[in-house]
């Protein structure tokens, strides 16, 4: 370029004669639905702490942290899909299916006589106790098996949406049914249980805690940080937002739209699979009806947290705040001894209210 740079790259701030700068509270995260849902959450927590002496106890907070972590990882994943303007209804079924695969593989590899099990276990001198050849290896292989199955499901979703041009709603609605059905088929409707010498590691990693912080909560925070990095500091993240904002523009500027779309469905499926595996560790089993209709909780949490189903908006903070809000309300209703059947009704009201307030805010500002 022949035109010399007159500005130092560090200070892109400029003043114009006739174009005013947007104030900081009209910009970025401060102007988002996420911001005031966070405020609403903070207000709710304050109210709750006065209303119930148990709310701020360590046990209750651990409970809340653990419970919302159980849908939040899947919510992070589906947020990628929602930002591109898509939807994934198969996450609930997939949570169950991935968990089943993981526990079945774990049990199978730990049972002498089953295929490949000789590579992983041998019998101790007493002829009864099963001993792992390499402690932890079965756990790694079985978790990977669950994740690979999730990846394949995500790949199929992505290919149907991005290459075959099917609607995300229809594709993933079909996948919801396919995957749930397969779960019943492979377990004969009974579900499965993690077993063998590595099951204890599995429980430690899913039910355990570090200095009182539940393990699932730690995974959630690490994944949320990773997601923030990917969304805001990589070309992939930039293209995810661009596709949600204007798919045609993304295509015309050379973004590989089908590839990015397939990738977001794979990310969503992997997150759901991991989530299911963690839940099964906490439950101690993967029943065939596990996580039924969880896709609705996950989508509700994402939307309450500010992800826009029309595409282009969303992020890890919103996903987590949405999940926390749902869990605090559930927890609050329990502590207040309100009939727990009210919970679902209230969640519905909050979904509509959150979106409505955002619409009103957009009109006023």
């Amino acid at each position, binding site marked *: 370029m022949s035109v010399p740079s007159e500005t130092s790259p560090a200070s892109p701030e400029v003043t114009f004669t*006739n*174009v005013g*700068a947007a104030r900081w509270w009209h910009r970025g995260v401060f102007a988002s639905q996420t911001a005031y849902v966070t405020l609403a959450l903070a207000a709710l927590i304050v109210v709750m702490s006065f209303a119930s002496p148990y709310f701020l106890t360590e046990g209750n907070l651990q409970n809340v942290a653990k419970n919302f972590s159980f849908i939040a990882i899947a919510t992070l994943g589906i947020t990628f899909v929602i930002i591109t303007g898509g939807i994934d209804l198969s996450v609930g079924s997939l949570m169950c299916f991935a968990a089943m695969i993981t526990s079945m593989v774990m049990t199978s590899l730990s049972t002498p006589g089953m295929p490949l099990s000789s590579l992983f276990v041998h019998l101790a001198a007493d002829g009864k106790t099963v001993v792992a050849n390499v402690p932890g290896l079965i756990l790694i292989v079985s978790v990977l098996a669950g994740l690979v199955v999730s990846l394949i499901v995500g790949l199929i979703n992505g290919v149907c949406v991005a290459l075959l041009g099917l609607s995300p709603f229809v594709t993933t609605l079909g996948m919801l049914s396919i995957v749930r059905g397969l779960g019943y088929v492979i377990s004969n409707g009974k579900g499965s249980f993690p077993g063998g010498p590595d099951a204890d590691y599995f429980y430690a990693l899913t039910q355990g805690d570090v200095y009182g912080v539940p393990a699932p909560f730690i995974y959630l925070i690490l994944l949320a940080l990773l997601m923030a990095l990917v969304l805001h500091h990589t070309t992939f993240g930039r293209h995810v937002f661009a596709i949600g*904002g204007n798919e045609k523009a993304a295509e015309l*500027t050379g973004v590989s739209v089908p590839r990015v779309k397939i990738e977001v469905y794979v990310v969503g499926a992997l997150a759901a699979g991991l989530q299911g595996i963690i839940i099964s560790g906490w439950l101690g089993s993967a029943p065939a009806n596990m996580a039924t209709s969880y896709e609705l909780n996950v989508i509700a949490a994402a939307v309450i947290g500010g992800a826009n189903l029309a595409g282009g908006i969303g992020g890890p903070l919103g996903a987590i705040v949405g999940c926390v809000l749902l869990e605090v309300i559930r927890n609050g209703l329990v502590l207040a001894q309100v009939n727990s059947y009210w919970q679902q009704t209230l969640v519905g009201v909050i979904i509509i209210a959150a979106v409505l307030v955002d619409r009103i805010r957009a009109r006023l500002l």
Partner: protein
Amino acid sequence: MSDDSSLHTPNTAAGDAAAAAATPPVLELKGIGKQFGAIRALHGVDLTISPGEVVGLMGDNGAGKSTLVRIIAGNFPPSQGSIHFGGREVHFHRPMDSRNVGIEVVYQDLALANNLTAAANVFLGRELRRNFGPLRLLDHKGMEARALELFRELRSETRPHDLVKDMSGGQRQAVAIARTRLSNARLVMMDEPTAAISVRQVEQVLSLIHRLKEQGIAVILISHRMPDIFAVCDRVVVMRRGEKRADKPIAETSPEEVTALITGAKEAA
């Protein structure tokens, strides 16, 4: 990025046209025709454009303007004829092919993502990245600085970190045009850039076209607005029924004559 002129490979076949324009043409179309089934959309269109020349492309709906632009942009190949760009014959199969040689299109709907900043839109699909240890992450500062430089060059009051959804029509045009400057384009085609914006913003867009011309970039301006054509163009090309009916320096024609050519009241000039 290299200097534009160094890319030229003078071609003897283009000599005649080059002599007339004093500089070798950037784009040369010879006998371009296009059929869609039984429909003859274009027939025998010749067109030569020199660097820094602004050519207005006019014609009624269905006259063949868009078909011609799409052929140059690589959306589909011509049925007959050849395209020479920078002295070499080129064959475009996809829009990326024409972009790679230095042809940029500013689409009527501008192809901007409203939820992204001006800088992000300028660099969409060509993001700058930096190494952070083993990672390749977006170079936000670099992109904002370069975008600001481009907006200054276009003399547009546009902040790189503002969201496109909050911008005026003129600013949005500036973002779309800045995108074409990023790649050192040698030919920019603009499809109805002034169709949907206010009078004041029309002036901004016309001055943006002047900026491109100053940089030696050839511009094809498709417009229905006679005042715009006469304000910025060096030449006007009139299409009617898939054929080029006139190709005149703007000084040698008048809005009345151009209107007559568009409507068919006058057959050719």
